[in-house]
């Protein structure tokens, strides 16, 4: 017990003198938070749009105005013909073009169906989806209104979508809790791996190995200070997320902190495994980044888990971040309770056991 405290104290003292690392650990969450919160936004707005109006009528002007009023389309100007639309798309002046056919108003008046064309630049699927969505509902509404006026009755079926938990569909609400997991994965794995490899590089590990310190005392003493740092980061992100981005927290903070322990521990154990493989701090850092990438891509942080092929989903299940994201989003945004999160708890516990097992297998107090 004493020995393990001696190591933890030593680690804290070294950390206190390592101003750069300390600053990094505080700045990393804040900078990432601001970047993801402000810069990364999947709410598509202000898409440059051109109009080829072949009808020049009141009805055609009206439809263009409704389009512009959504805030989704910025009307950049009028064009005349497909070649001009294509030039606009290639140069990036336009991503969407609306083509109103000649005789549009006349068809409406004659109660004949009329077809509007929407040309969309498909290079970014997210823009295609949003553009089609917005304009379809717009046209559906217009059609319904016209039909209503003619028939004098309400349409038979109506859909009333109700969005729970993040009703305004703000990206920050989705991203900020997830960022806790990403930042913990990044810093926890890297810090532990580097803390041990640093001792090997500087030759102090030999002094530790030759001392009566047991492996478990060494491992615990090494990682305990980083657990504390992990909690500081969690608090920092939640606090800044709340103040700057108005991210709600509806569940139990205590529950989140409790479950976070499993996640931090799993990452620290993985850091220990890496430290036994890496010879230099640089290698340790590379391994940590190599591990981070699939975490960001597969865990559901950036792309929906449900959209991945089955094999990728299985791989993602083995990543602690996948389960932690469900926990943190569940607790923070939906108010999930412990019993709601039992499956994630089992997964995290299982992963933790595997990592700890690997670490203690690899982490031997021997040289050579």
């Amino acid at each position: 017990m004493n020995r393990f405290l001696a190591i933890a104290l030593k680690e804290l003292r070294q950390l206190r003198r390592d101003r750069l690392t300390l600053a990094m650990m505080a700045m990393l969450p804040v900078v990432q938070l601001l970047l993801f919160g402000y810069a990364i936004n999947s709410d598509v707005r202000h898409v440059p749009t051109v109009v080829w109006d072949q009808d020049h009528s009141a009805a055609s002007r009206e439809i263009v105005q409704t389009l512009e009023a959504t805030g989704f389309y910025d009307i950049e100007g009028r064009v005349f013909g497909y070649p001009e639309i294509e030039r606009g798309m290639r140069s990036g002046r336009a991503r969407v073009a609306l083509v109103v056919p000649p005789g549009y108003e006349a068809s409406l008046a004659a109660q004949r169906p009329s077809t509007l064309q929407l040309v969309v630049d498909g290079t970014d699927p997210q823009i295609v989806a949003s553009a089609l969505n917005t304009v379809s509902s717009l046209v559906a509404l217009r059609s319904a209104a016209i039909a209503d006026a003619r028939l004098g009755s309400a349409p038979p079926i109506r859909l009333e979508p109700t969005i729970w938990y993040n009703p305004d569909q703000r990206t920050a609400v989705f991203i900020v809790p997830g960022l806790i997991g990403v930042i913990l994965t990044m810093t926890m794995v890297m810090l532990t791996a580097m803390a041990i490899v640093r001792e090997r590089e500087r030759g102090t590990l030999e002094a530790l190995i030759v001392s009566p310190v047991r492996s478990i005392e060494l491992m615990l003493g090494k990682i305990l200070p980083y657990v504390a740092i992990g909690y500081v980061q969690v608090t920092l992100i939640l606090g800044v997320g709340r103040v700057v981005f108005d991210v709600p927290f509806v569940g139990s903070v205590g529950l989140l902190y409790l479950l976070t322990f499993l996640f931090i521990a799993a990452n620290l154990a993985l850091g220990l495994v890496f430290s036994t493989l890496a010879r230099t701090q640089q290698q340790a850092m590379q391994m940590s980044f190599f591990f981070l990438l699939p975490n960001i891509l597969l865990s559901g942080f950036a792309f929906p888990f449900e959209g991945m092929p089955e094999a990728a989903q299985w791989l993602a299940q083995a990543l602690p971040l996948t389960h932690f994201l469900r926990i943190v989003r569940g607790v923070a945004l939906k108010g999930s309770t412990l019993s709601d999160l039992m499956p994630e708890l089992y997964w995290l516990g299982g992963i933790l056991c595997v990592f700890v097992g690997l670490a203690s297998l690899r982490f031997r107090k021997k040289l050579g």
Partner: protein
Amino acid sequence: MSAEVVIEAQHLARHFGDLVAVRDVSLSVRRGEIFGVLGPNGAGKSTTIRMLCGILDPTSGGARVVGFDVRQQPEEVKRRIGYVTQRFSLYEDLTVRENMEFFAGIYGVPRRERRARIEGRLERAGLMPRQKQLAANLSGGWQRRLALACSTIHEPPLLFLDEPTAGVDPVSRREFWDQIHRISSEGTTVLVTTHYMDEAERCHRLAFIFKGEVLDVGSPSEIVARRALRIAELHVPAESRRAAELLRERSEVDEVAPFGAVLRVATLGGGDPVALCREVLAGAGIALERAEEARPTVEDAFVSMVRSEGAS
């Protein structure tokens, strides 16, 4: 000196893949001795120490250290030894005192005694005024003293020092060796590796290691005597290079080495070296200003031994 054996190593060997670091080392170190392990770089000194400390398993052979088998009970061994590694292995980003506190902690020095023990060690090593300095800012000599103080904080009966004075200035080396003798006089057994010959002469007993094997073990004077070397120091005012070449051709001459204006001639076989040199140089018509016999040193014995091993 009691006859109690603190280290008993039998046919230790360690291979790293195809590389044989230690071929066959058997040693017996008695309690209270300063036991020197002497050998050129790469002879297997550090590997031997690591095996004796229980942090590296021997490929074959075995050793009992402070009464425990290094293979079976390495943790028992570790509790009872101090070890100063070849590289400076303290935390440069901790202060002198923090380093001491850390080692007191991991060696389980009881909390009540800790403060007094640390202050005693600081006092003795002369580190008291520097206790708040970062270890990185100490000079090489002071770093070594700190390493020694840290590795003896738990009062181990056996202390391993692996080239403790490599790269340290001569004055600091002297002071360091005074400390080693003090520790030894308090009953601690010390095993020290070195390739400084003046340090070798300060050990009670020595083992010569070369290419992973022990060439000879004994007190410095025994080792020198066994080699049966005689030394002549010649002052040759002119043509000293030709003189050296002529002397080297003689089978009795083991080595000729220039030391400034002096030629140091080592002979084997016990004949009078001065008479031999006079005869050779007179025959070649080379003037000899002065010639006298000198006492052979450990260095002479060592060089001679390594040479004959290398030739065979």
